[in-house]
């Protein structure tokens, strides 16, 4: 899922304070799972902004709302009424959702309330970590199911480097050394020899480095 973190209240306030009618709009899929941008979080943020507006003596009408996902037309259609009424929309969706909402209502100012951070998993309630870098050429079959591009700080394909420190990455003890994990996993599966196999220079064309990507399913596209 996509993980994001709500911008600071100061930053958000700074973006919306000069508008009169503000709509705080949540997205109830990925960013709701990480408790940052869901419809519930939109209501909470709306309340905080109303308190702030009162304290700063600004006559503002702050409304809240949300839809299931901001990245699909069928849900965005439901947002029309609320969006049209507002002067500005503070979208709490991930970067894709904020943009898509903006594309649907190009005459409206749509602002990002979240900093979208990574594709990750829920390790434990309230704890999320990065797993995938969307490189477009998955090598998980060679690395025991652990991605070195996403989880090694240097994205080494023939790791570990000399800084692997007691199972942790040298830059942060909270980050496990991905190649230590790969080594242990492969050994446990009886595939330890894979670490000795040289992985040649990667083709980055399929990653973001090759340009913005798109994809079409001929059998589904109209």
């Amino acid at each position: 899922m996509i993980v994001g973190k709500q911008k600071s209240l100061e930053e958000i306030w700074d973006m919306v304070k000069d508008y009169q009618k503000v709509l705080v709009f949540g997205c109830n899929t990925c960013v709701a799972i990480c408790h940052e941008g869901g419809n519930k979080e939109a209501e909470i943020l709306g309340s905080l902004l109303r308190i702030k507006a009162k304290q700063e003596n600004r006559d503002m009408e702050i409304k809240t709302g949300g839809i299931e996902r901001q990245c699909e037309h069928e849900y965005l259609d439901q947002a029309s009424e609320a969006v049209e009424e507002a002067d500005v929309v503070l979208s709490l969706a991930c970067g894709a959702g904020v943009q898509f909402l903006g594309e649907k209502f190009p005459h409206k100012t749509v602002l990002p309330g979240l900093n979208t951070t990574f594709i990750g998993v829920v390790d434990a309630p309230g704890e999320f970590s990065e797993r995938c870098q969307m490189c477009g050429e998955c090598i998980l079959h060679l690395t025991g199911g652990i991605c070195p591009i996403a989880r090694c700080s240097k994205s080494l394909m023939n790791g570990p480097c000399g800084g692997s420190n007691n199972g942790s990455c040298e830059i942060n003890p909270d980050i496990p050394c991905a190649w230590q994990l790969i080594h242990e996993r492969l050994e446990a599966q009886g595939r330890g020899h894979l670490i000795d196999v040289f992985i040649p220079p990667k083709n980055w064309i399929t990653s973001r480095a090759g340009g913005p990507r798109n994809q079409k399913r001929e059998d589904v596209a109209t």
Partner: protein
Amino acid sequence: MQYLKTLLVKVDIDPERLEMYNLSAAMGPKWMEICTEFTERIKKLGPSPIWWAEHDHKKKESD
């Protein structure tokens, strides 16, 4: 509650102004105790920033 208090701090409201108590309808004396104590607490804290904001606003309007 912890979380709510952190949110209050973000809008410059003293988290001491918010508290949750659990009691049943039959606990009259306890209820009186809590009310008294909490009123004291708030009296000590004085008007909230929201009161001040509205107060200043009304004052400006009447000036």
